[in-house]
């Protein structure tokens, strides 16, 4: 997904690749809103191995606690922001 294609609402992909991953497992599959767009920065999954890193947009995505934790949320309307690299995000209709 390119920065231009990003809509306001995005879903974190559910993939589980091995390696140095900066996308926490607890937000995979969750839908949030883009809070701001940063970067482009080198993809840490490549940087960690010392290979040429693709430069990617880094998105701050804001999730509600209801979305992340479901019925177990301490306060559904509180929020959680995380920085997610663009290749981990897909558009939500």
């Amino acid at each position, binding site marked *: 997904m390119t920065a231009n294609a990003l809509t306001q609402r995005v879903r974190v992909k559910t993939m589980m690749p091995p390696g140095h991953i*900066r996308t*926490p497992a607890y937000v995979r599959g969750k839908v949030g809103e883009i809070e701001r767009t940063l970067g482009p920065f080198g993809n840490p999954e490549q940087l960690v191995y010392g290979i040429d890193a693709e430069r990617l947009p880094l998105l701050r995505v804001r999730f509600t606690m209801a979305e992340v934790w479901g019925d*177990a949320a301490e*306060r559904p309307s*509180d929020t*959680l922001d995380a920085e997610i690299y663009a290749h981990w995000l897909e558009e939500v209709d």
Partner: protein
Amino acid sequence: MLHDHHDHDHLSPSGHPYRADNDVPLTYWQTMEIAVRELLIEKGVSTAAEIAGQIDAMDRRSPADGAQVVARAWTDPAFKDRLLADASEASREMGFDIGTLRLIAVENTVDVHNVIVCTLCSCYPRNLLGMAPDWYKSREYRSRTVKEPRKVLSEFGVVLPDHIQVRVHDSTADMRYIVLPERPAGTDGWDTEALADLVTRDSMIGTSVLSTVT
């Protein structure tokens, strides 16, 4: 005999246990660090004095640096706007040598309380605030803050009213965070130096709020 030993054999005069000597072999990573450091010196890339100087420079950084940034934001609305737009540039503007730190400031208001955590490791704005407290790096703080932030905050003595929204920021990638706490009531007319003295490390992590000054 200076004092009675019979049931205090393992305690120091202050009543605490003696810490064991670290007479153990180096770990893999300690050996690696020494090897790389010696190579850098041998190859002329760096000098021992430069490396010691960098350690000293890091040790000199402290929450007092962040406190000055906060106090300036409280007293200078234009600076606050620049801080919220780009906290790295605003910190450099004040003369802080923060290196490559990419900083975001998040503002506490009457309706919003922010708290910072790094679930994946222990990312912390060291170049502005100095070393992170040990608890910030603990698995308990890292795992619980994203799941039950209000409970964690209450254990720090921060009980938030229901109308306040909690925003947790998980420092997962390139950015580091500082909370801009609310200016305490009772400080009208104070200068930035006096205000900076009120700002605590934990208030900039979001695990404390600053009390009204009476």
